[in-house]
């Protein structure tokens, strides 16, 4: 009877025909080895920067998008279940053709054999803001003495063999290198001179490990090494650089005629990591890890400068200096963590964790200097300096989580943070070692609430009492609350809200910190008909910061108050309208208005149009506008229109 009904269904097309033997042996489901799914898209075109006005330097510091032919993005995904060489390949490239952020990501895997990923990024970083690090601003000089025009290349790759198997080895490599030009300062007693610099640094990291995956135990052992180098050079030649000081010192103008500084740093180190998780019984889990790293560095430094200078220590003028320094530093660091999870009932969990972090930096430097004195023998000096930084940090936390009902989970716990830090004072005129301690008890609580099928809330609360902090600005006596919620009004309309508040006080003698931060956010997503015709996404955030912290003015030790205010309104909007099949208009904007200590407005409206041309070929056009205004630093304002057009090809 059953077979007859099934045959009838097959004939009616209600059931696909299946070979009987396959039904009898479901374990040997045949892989569709020849099956392959390939998809992707390429988007390219040309961009114009039109109507640019205002500060070019600030435009480049904030936006930095330029003109020319561009590869906006390229994506490809290949799926080949049971393939001989791979199951899946994914390639994603974005922003090529002179844009400041070029990225490529490649992922490949074959189930049970390997998994591989490669990330490449080439980041152009330009920063030159006339209001930043510019002591001559009051004299009308719009030139930042801390400027950068650099590139950074990053490569991150990992290859894992037999992922998920009982023994799974892996290898990884990371490379970061940076280089470019910039402006920095050369500092002598009584004056500092803006000069050009060439930056070049690089670091590589190699690591390999073995993962052991058992039913109740997972263990990872990893060993790695790093190398580091820094070859910064600073130079000035040809002319007289008067520096920032415009009044004589010891009856002479302090000026720079010639400068060469060469930093040479070579470093390396090893690191180890052991990580495990055990689940001996269904009600008990352990997790732990031990991390150790020991980087070190050797330094050579050469400096020669000529001009008119003053040596404060000897109250003596000099015309040239030759300096050489040799130094080294090491930084062993050990970290460990142990976490226990107990599930006494199906609805309750207790999680207890302990974490410790111990760091010790020791550095030493030998500096030899030779000063050319007018009409006297050269003055030779040498000094040996050492530095030390120690940190011992510990954290213990216990959380209890109870699933009160299927729609409500409550959490409560306690965290204790303690530790000590010591730093050799970095100021020559006040040598000594500074010590500080951390001691903070934190009560934590939370709740997860799901009412019906459409309303989710999560609440996260912390209240702390601390009587020791490492720094004056640290969290001490604080209350923090975060509330997040999402409400699905209908399939087409979703509201998301978030509220966060942080109140921090430190009433310790000489500190008297008061901090209040609030963020209130609301987002709306409207997608009638699953967004087939149109959709709208809006979000708005109101964020305020009120901070007040007394400080001492160095010159007269008068107690003043550093106040910081930020009263910001931030919003994003994007409307999408589907005009006809595969034709679309996107209209949107991103806005940031902030009043307070640095009143700033930043607008980014944009519009995009996509229309099919032929087959999978589409034409796209984009307009973006950037408008940046600062009330206190109007010379930093800029605005620019960006127009782009091109083709998009899908496959």
């Amino acid at each position, binding site marked *: 009877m059953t077979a007859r009904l099934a045959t009838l269904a097959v004939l009616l097309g209600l059931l696909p025909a299946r070979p009987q033997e396959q039904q009898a042996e479901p374990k040997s489901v045949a892989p569709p080895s020849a099956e392959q799914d390939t998809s992707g898209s390429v988007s390219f075109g040309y961009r114009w920067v039109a109507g640019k006005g205002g500060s070019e330097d600030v435009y480049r510091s904030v936006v930095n998008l330029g003109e020319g032919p561009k590869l906006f993005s390229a994506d490809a995904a290949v799926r080949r279940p049971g393939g001989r060489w791979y199951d899946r390949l994914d390639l994603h490239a974005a922003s090529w053709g002179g844009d400041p952020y070029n990225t490529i990501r490649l992922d490949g895997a074959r189930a049970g054999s390997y998994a591989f990923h490669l990330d490449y990024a080439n980041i152009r970083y330009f920063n030159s803001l006339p209001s930043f690090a510019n002591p001559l*601003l009051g004299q009308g000089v719009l030139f930042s003495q801390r400027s950068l025009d650099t590139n950074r290349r990053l490569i991150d790759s990992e290859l894992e063999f037999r992922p998920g198997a009982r023994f799974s080895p892996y290898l990884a490599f990371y490379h970061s290198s940076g280089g470019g030009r910039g402006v920095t300062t050369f500092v002598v007693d009584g004056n500092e001179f803006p000069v050009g610099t060439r*930056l070049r640094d690089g*670091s590589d990291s190699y690591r390999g490990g073995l993962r052991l995956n058992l039913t109740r135990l997972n263990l990872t052992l990893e060993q790695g090494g790093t190398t580091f180098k820094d070859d910064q050079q600073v130079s000035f030649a040809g002319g007289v650089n008067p520096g920032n000081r415009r009044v004589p010192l010891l009856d002479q103008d302090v000026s720079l005629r010639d400068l060469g500084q060469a930093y040479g740093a070579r470093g390396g180190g090893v690191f180890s990591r052991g990580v495990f998780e055990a689940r001996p019984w269904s009600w008990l889990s352990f997790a732990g890890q031990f991390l150790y790293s020991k980087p070190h560095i050797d330094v050579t430094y050469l400096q020669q400068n000529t001009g008119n200078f003053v040596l404060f220590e000897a109250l003596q003028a000099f015309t040239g200096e030759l300096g050489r320094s040799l130094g080294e530093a090491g930084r062993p660091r050990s970290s460990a963590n142990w976490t226990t999870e107990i599930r006494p009932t199906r609805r309750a969990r207790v999680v207890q964790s302990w974490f410790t972090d111990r760091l010790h930096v020791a550095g030493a430097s030998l500096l030899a200097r030779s000063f050319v004195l007018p009409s006297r023998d050269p003055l030779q000096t040498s000094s040996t300096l050492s530095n030390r*930084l120690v940190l011992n940090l510990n954290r213990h936390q216990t959380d209890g989580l109870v699933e009160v009902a299927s729609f409500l989970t409550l959490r409560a716990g306690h965290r204790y943070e303690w530790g000590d830090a010591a730093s050799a004072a970095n100021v020559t005129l006040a040598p000594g070692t500074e010590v500080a301690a951390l001691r903070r008890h934190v009560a934590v609580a939370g709740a997860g609430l799901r009412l019906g099928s459409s309303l989710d809330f999560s609440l996260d609360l912390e209240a702390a009492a601390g009587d020791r902090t490492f*720094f004056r600005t640290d969290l001490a006596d604080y209350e923090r609350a975060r509330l997040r919620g999402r409400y699905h009004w209908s399939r087409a309309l979703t509201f998301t809200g978030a509220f966060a508040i942080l109140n921090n006080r430190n009433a310790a003698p000489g500190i008297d910190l008061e901090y209040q931060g609030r963020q209130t956010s609301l987002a709306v997503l409207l997608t009638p008909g699953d967004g087939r015709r149109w959709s709208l996404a809006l979000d708005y955030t109101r964020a305020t910061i009120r901070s007040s912290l007394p400080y001492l003015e160095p010159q007269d030790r008068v107690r003043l108050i550093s106040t910081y205010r930020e009263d910001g309104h931030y919003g994003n909007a994007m409307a999408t309208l589907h005009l006809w099949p595969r034709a679309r208009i996107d209209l949107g904007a991103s806005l940031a208005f902030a009043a307070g200590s640095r009143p700033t407005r930043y607008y980014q409206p944009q519009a995009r149009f996509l229309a099919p041309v032929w087959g999978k070929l589409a034409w796209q056009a984009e307009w973006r506008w950037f408008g940046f205004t600062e009330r206190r630093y109007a010379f930093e304002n800029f605005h620019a229109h960006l127009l782009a057009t091109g083709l998009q090809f899908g496959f």
Partner: protein
Amino acid sequence: VTPAGPICLLLLAAQTPPPDLPEGFVGSETCRLCHEDLGGEFRFNPHFAIDRGASKEARSREWQGRACEACHGPGKAHMEAAEAKHIFLYGKSLRNRVAPAAGRINDQCLQCHAGGLTHNDRLLGAHGRNGVSCTQCHSVHRSDRRPLLAVEPNELCQQCHVNVRAEFARPYRHRVPEGAMGCTDCHDPHGELLPRQVRRVAANETVCLKCHGDKRGPFPFEHAPVRLGRCNTCHEPHGSMNPRLLVRHEQRFLCLECHTSSLQTIGITPPALHDLRSPRFQNCTICHSKIHGSLVNKDLLR
């Protein structure tokens, strides 16, 4: 469920499961008869390796041909009654008004995914503590987005962290909106030892040093907050209205808030030669140019 579904269920209910399947199981092929919308795409999904027996877990637990039931539990009762309550559902549905608690969902996923470094710190993470389940981010049946995410990674994070989206609307920011980097470059959504689930590099260094390698050191003369992993003492990592992502609008305030001698904290008042009435001393990094650590100079001057 297609229009053919009810008829299929009736027909299949009368069938006897293949004799070599464990009691209560029906096999993935049977599931796909009704859930053909999932079945078609699923063959390109990494979890299809379970059906093919290409993973260790699949072989050791004899899950070949039963990928659906590996996650959703035995399907025979569900098939016979055509009711959702007979299988384990991860999300909400018309018949399943409330999704299971996050802990139960995660337990199911962690049967296979507990290994490796990815999930080792999950017990410490805010997502784990606040009941964020695996399926809130991962759409397990999909295959077109790595690693099976419901939407693009940055968009996914900002669906809940709406306030962070606002921070990236500020002019001075990390280039997340531009696509140069992503939330998961710095944060591990599965959990981490450090607060805010911030990742680490070279075993136990803060993730900032991954890109900002020139600040890695160690330096013979360190600036304490940098080395104590407190980059956010001075910088607002997502975005700021102040240059260089600083937390204060003027350098002198930023520096002097810590550099005022207090009992029991690190940071001492600078010597009196720092006359703040002069603009030269209002811009601290004009002289202290090696503010992140110096190779040569104790006062971070060169």
